[in-house]
C-alpha cells in the first residue's frame, strides 16, 4: 500500500529563517505516528505544509499521493485537523463551532458528536468566549473525531487537557486506530506518544533526526541496569559496551549497549544476583539525548 503521508527533502524558509531543512516524513496507512521536537523545531510548519496552508519551497510533499498545495480541498475531505492553539469565534457556542467545522468537512454525525460531548464532558451551550484552553481544544477534538475521515492531523492536541481527559483522548485514538485510521500526532507529552504511537519521528531545526518504531529508537540508546550481587558487581566496568558504573548503598548501577547486554548478564550471573532491575531507555531519554544541553538548539526560528 502507498504511504498516507510522504514527505521528501521538504524545505521552507520564512525570510532568512530556515524553518524546514530537508525534512523527511512517512506515514503508512493505519499507523499512529508521533511527531516530536522542541518548540520552534518546525512541527507546526510541517503540518501546515501538509494541509496546503503553506507552500513548500523545495522537496516533494504527497498526502494520499497528491500535492496538498494544488489538491488541498480534495485532500481535506479525507482528513481532519486539530490546531495546537485553538481559537474560536467568540459569539457562538461550542456546539455551534463543532457543527460548523464538521459540516464544512461534509456533515455531522449527531450520535457520534453527542457521544464525544459526553465522554469529553463538554457543555456545548456555552459561548466559546467563556471556554478555557482545554475546553477550546475539546471543541476542535470533538469536531475532528466526529468526522468520518481517513487521516487525523493533531498538533499538540492535549496540551490543555487534564489527566482524565487525556485518558479519554487516548481511548479515542485507540478506537481510531482500530477503525484503520492514520494519525499524525505532534506532541510534547512523551508518555502519550509512548502509549499511542507505533512510530516516531523526532525533528530538530527543521530536519528529521530520528525516525522509526519505538523499539528501533530504543536500540540506539543504552539500557540502565541496577543490580545487587553477593560479589563485586563493579567489575562489569572491564567489559566493553558497559558505561557509567556507580555504586550506591550496596547497589551497582550502570548503562549498557544493547549488543553488550548478554555479555554483561553472563558476567553478573556467577556473582550471585540478589535483585536486578533493567530499564529500557524512555522516550524522554531519547528526546533529551537528541537535544541534550551540549548541543542545545539555538533559540529563535519558527514557532511550533
Amino acid at each position, binding site marked *: 500500500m502507498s504511504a498516507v503521508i510522504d514527505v521528501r527533502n521538504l524545505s521552507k524558509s520564512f525570510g532568512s529563517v530556515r524553518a524546514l531543512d530537508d525534512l523527511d516524513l512517512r506515514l503508512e496507512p493505519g499507523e499512529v505516528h508521533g511527531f516530536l521536537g522542541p518548540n520552534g523545531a518546525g512541527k507546526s510548519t510541517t503540518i*501546515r505544509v501538509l*494541509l*496546503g*496552508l*503553506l*507552500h513548500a519551497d523545495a522537496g516533494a510533499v504527497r498526502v494520499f499521493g497528491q500535492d496538498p498545495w494544488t489538491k*488541498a*480541498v480534495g485532500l*481535506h*475531505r479525507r*482528513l*481532519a*485537523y486539530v*490546531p495546537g*492553539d*485553538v*481559537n*474560536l*469565534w467568540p*459569539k*457562538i*457556542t461550542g*456546539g*455551534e463551532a*463543532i*457543527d*460548523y*467545522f464538521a*459540516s*464544512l*468537512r*461534509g456533515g455531522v454525525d449527531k450520535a457520534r458528536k453527542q457521544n464525544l460531548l459526553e465522554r469529553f464532558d463538554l457543555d*456545548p*451551550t*456555552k*459561548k466559546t*468566549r*467563556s471556554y478555557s484552553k482545554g475546553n477550546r481544544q475539546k471543541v*476542535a477534538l470533538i469536531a475532528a473525531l466526529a468526522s468520518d475521515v481517513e487521516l487525523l*492531523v493533531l498538533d499538540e492536541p492535549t496540551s490543555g487537557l487534564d489527566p482524565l481527559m487525556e485518558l479519554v483522548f487516548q481511548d479515542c485514538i485507540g478506537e481510531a486506530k482500530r477503525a484503520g485510521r492514520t494519525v499524525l500526532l505532534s506532541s510534547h507529552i512523551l508518555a502519550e506518544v509512548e502509549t499511542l504511537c507505533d512510530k516516531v519521528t523526532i525533528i530538530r531545526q527543521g530536519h528529521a533526526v530520528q525516525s522509526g518504531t519505538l523499539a528501533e529508537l530504543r536500540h540506539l540508546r543504552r539500557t540502565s541496569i541496577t543490580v545487587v550481587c553477593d560479589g563485586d558487581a563493579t567489575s562489569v566496568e572491564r567489559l566493553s559496551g558497559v558505561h557509567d558504573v556507580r555504586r550506591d548503598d550496596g547497589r551497582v548501577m550502570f548503562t549498557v549497549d544493547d549488543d553488550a547486554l548478554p555479555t554483561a548478564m553472563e558476567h553478573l550471573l556467577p556473582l550471585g544476583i540478589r535483585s536486578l532491575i533493567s530499564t529500557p531507555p524512555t522516550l524522554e531519554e531519547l528526546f533529551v539525548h537528541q537535544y541534550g544541553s551540549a548541543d542545545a538548539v539555538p533559540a529563535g526560528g519558527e514557532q511550533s
Partner: protein
Amino acid sequence: MSATMTAPRRAHRSHRADGGGSLTGTGRLARFALRRDRIQIPVWAIALGGTIGYFLVVIPIAYPDPAALQTRAAIMKEPAGAMMAGPGYGLDNYTFGAMVSNELLGWLAVASALMSIFLVTRHTRDEEETGRAELIRANVVGRHAPLTAALITLAVANIAMGALLSAALIANDLAVADSLAIGAGVGLAGLVFGAVAAVTAQLSEHARAASGMAGAVLGLAYVLRGVGDAQEIGGSFLSWLSPIGWTQQTRAFVDLRWWPLLLCIALTAVLLVAAFLLAGRRDVGAGLMAAKRGRANATPALVHPAGLALRMERGSILGWAVGLFLTGLLTGSLGQGIVDSFESQPQLAEVFGGGSGGDLLRQTMASFLGFFAMGVAVFAVVSVNRMRKEETEGRTGAVLATDITRPHWLLSTFAVTAVSSAVLLLVSGFGLGLGAGASIGEMSLAWDFTVASLAYWPIVLCFAGLAVLAYGVLRAGVWWVWILLVGSILIGLYGPVLNLPEAVLDAEPFGLVPQVPGAELEAAPLVWMSVVAIALTAAGTLAFRNRDLEA
C-alpha cells in the same frame, strides 16, 4: 468581653498599617493605566478639540452674519431640529456661542460619554475577562484598587478633554466663564457615563455586554433629552431626566447657570457608591448576572462560511443600520429648512452641490445621500478587514483545513459585506427620503431615495474590492486603502467649501456617481465602477489563493 471586642479592631488597624487596605496599590495601578492610555486619551481629547476647532472655522463661513444665524435658529426651533441639537436657548438672538452650546454640546457630551464607557470597561471588566486582573490582584493589591485606578484614569481623561475644549473656545474669543461651563459639562457627562460603566462592569461577566448596557443607558439619555427638547423650547421634564440634558441646561453663552452640573456630580457620586458596593459583593471574574447560554447545535443557516460571517457581523450591521436610518431620518426632516436657508445663503447651496433651479430639496438630499454612502464605504472596508483578524488568530487556517477552497471562503465572506452594504445603503436612502418626504408631505420621496441609494453600491464595492486586494496581497498592508477612502471622503465633504480645483473635485470617486434622484441616472459610470469592483475582488482572490497563510 472587652478584650475580645478590641482584639479584632487592633488587628484590623495593624492590618491597615501594614498597607493591607482595600485600596493598596491604587497609585501604581493608576499610573500604569494612564501609561497604557497615553496615546488613547490625547487622541480623544485632540479629536474633540479638533472637531470644535473645525466648526469654529466653518460656522462663521457658513453663517457670516446675524441674519444668516437666524435662519439656522429657525431650523432649530422645529421639533426635529431640537431633537438633533438641544433645548434651544437663545434662538431669538442666535449667536455663535449659543449655536455651540445648543447644537454641538450634546454631541460632544455623547462623545466624551462613549470614550468614558470604553475607558472604564477596558480597565475593569475587560481586564477580568482576559484574566489579567487575576494576575494583578494576586499581588499586593487591594480589593477596590483596580476599580479606583480606572476611575482616576477616567477623571484624568475627562479633565484633559474638558480643559482642551474650554481652551479652544476661549482662544476663539468666546466668554471665559461660558467656555469653562461647556468644558465642564462635557467632562462631567463623561464622568457620569464612566460611572454608569463602572456599575455595568460589575453586572456582566463580559466586557462587551458591560459596555453595551452602559451604551444603552447613554442612548436612552440622548433620546430622553431629544424628545424633551422637541416638546418645548427649553426642554420638558424629560430633558431633566437626562445627564446630557443637564449639561445643556447650563444655558452657556445665553444666560449661564452652573447648578445643573451639580446634578451630574450627585449622580456620579451615587453611581460610584453603587459600583463599589457591588464590587465588594462579588468574586474576581464573576458577574452578578449569569452569562446567557446558547444553542447546543448549529442551525442550518450557520454552517456555511457566509452564515458564520453574517453571524459575526450581525451586531455591527444592525448598529450601522439603526444609526444610518435615524441620522437619515433626522437629516431628511431638516431638508426643507436647509433649502429655505439657501435663499439667504447662496454659498451654502454650493456646499451641498445644489445649483439654481430644479428641485432644490431633491438635489440637496441627493448630495446628503452621497455622505451616507461614504459611511457605508467605511463599513465595507472595516467588514472586509475582519478577515485579517480571522487569519492572524488562526481560525482561517482551521477552516481552510476542511473541505472548502480559499476562493469559496473569501468570496462567501465578501458576499456578506457586499449584501449588507447594499442593505445599509437602502436603509439610509429610505430614512433620508422618509424624513424629507414627511417634512413636505410628499411620501413618494421615500421610495425615490431608497431606489436611488443603490447607485452608490458599485463605488462602495470598489472600496471593498480594494480592501480585498489589500488582504490578498497581505504584505502590501491596508493603510493605503484607508488613505484613499478617507481622502475621497474629505475631498467629497469639504472640497466645495475649500474651493479646491474643479479637476480634483471631479476625480473624487463619490462625486463620479450620478446624484440621483436630483440628477439624471447615467448608467455608464455605474457600469465602469462595477467592472472595477469585480476586477479588484478577483485580483485579491487570486492573490489570496497563491500566498502562504499567516497563522
